[in-house]
């Protein structure tokens, strides 16, 4: 059994599809997730949006976002099923857990840095940028610190 991970699935449903068809598709997705021991986290329907370019002959589509926990096999199965479905015109599954964890970590680190500065009686924002997001332009950073 492979590891479970957090994935985001976005699919675009053809604008000709009825509300009922979209709801059916959603329950289908849910059942697949449940069958392969996944877990739904949340669902968002963005509604009808204009596409940035034509897909097939469609100019707009209904976007649906599903966030779920699951394994790689589950994403494979979902992808296959959505490809087969003829009302889905585009789908994308993205693994997000690593990026979210990284974002969380940098936020925590920044918070710790601010806290440390406050404890030392310094203003929360230093002359040097506290995060390590700097670009390696050391010369600029050094001259900034001197002034």
């Amino acid at each position, binding site marked *: 059994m492979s590891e479970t991970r957090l994935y985001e699935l976005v699919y675009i449903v053809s604008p000709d599809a009825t509300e009922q068809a979209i709801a059916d598709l959603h329950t289908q997705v849910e059942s697949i997730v449940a069958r392969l021991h996944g877990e739904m986290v949340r669902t968002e329907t963005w509604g009808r949006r204009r596409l940035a*370019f034509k897909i097939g002959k469609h100019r707009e589509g209904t976007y649906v976002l599903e966030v779920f926990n699951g394994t790689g096999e589950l994403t494979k199965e979902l992808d296959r099923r959505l490809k087969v479905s003829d009302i889905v015109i*585009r789908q*994308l599954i993205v693994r997000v857990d690593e*990026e979210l964890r*990284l*974002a969380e970590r940098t936020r925590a680190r920044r918070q710790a840095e601010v806290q440390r500065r406050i404890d030392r009686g310094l203003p929360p924002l230093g002359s040097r940028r506290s*995060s390590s*997001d*700097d670009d390696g332009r050391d010369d*600029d950073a050094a001259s900034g610190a001197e002034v």
Partner: protein
Amino acid sequence: MFNERRTGQGAGPKGRGSSARGADKGGQRRPMFRRRKVCKFCTDKVDYIDYKDAKMLIPFVPERAKILPRRISGVCAMHQRKLQTAIKRARQLALLPYATD
């Protein structure tokens, strides 16, 4: 006096740069003043660049829908990398165009 020398020295590399650039344009001697560009994502403390947020990505894909190079936008290397994947994902979902004509 000392101060003057220091500023002269400081302007040195900049002056060289602008004269080299000026030579291309035909001997312009005016020292170019450029504002230091800072990464928008670093200043706003954005940790996660979301591909679903097309509004946020649009400023980085001007007219032709090409990704804005970071020498122009001033985005730092790390954020440009994240921006790049976000834009590419948004394109797959037709949130952003691949090209416009």
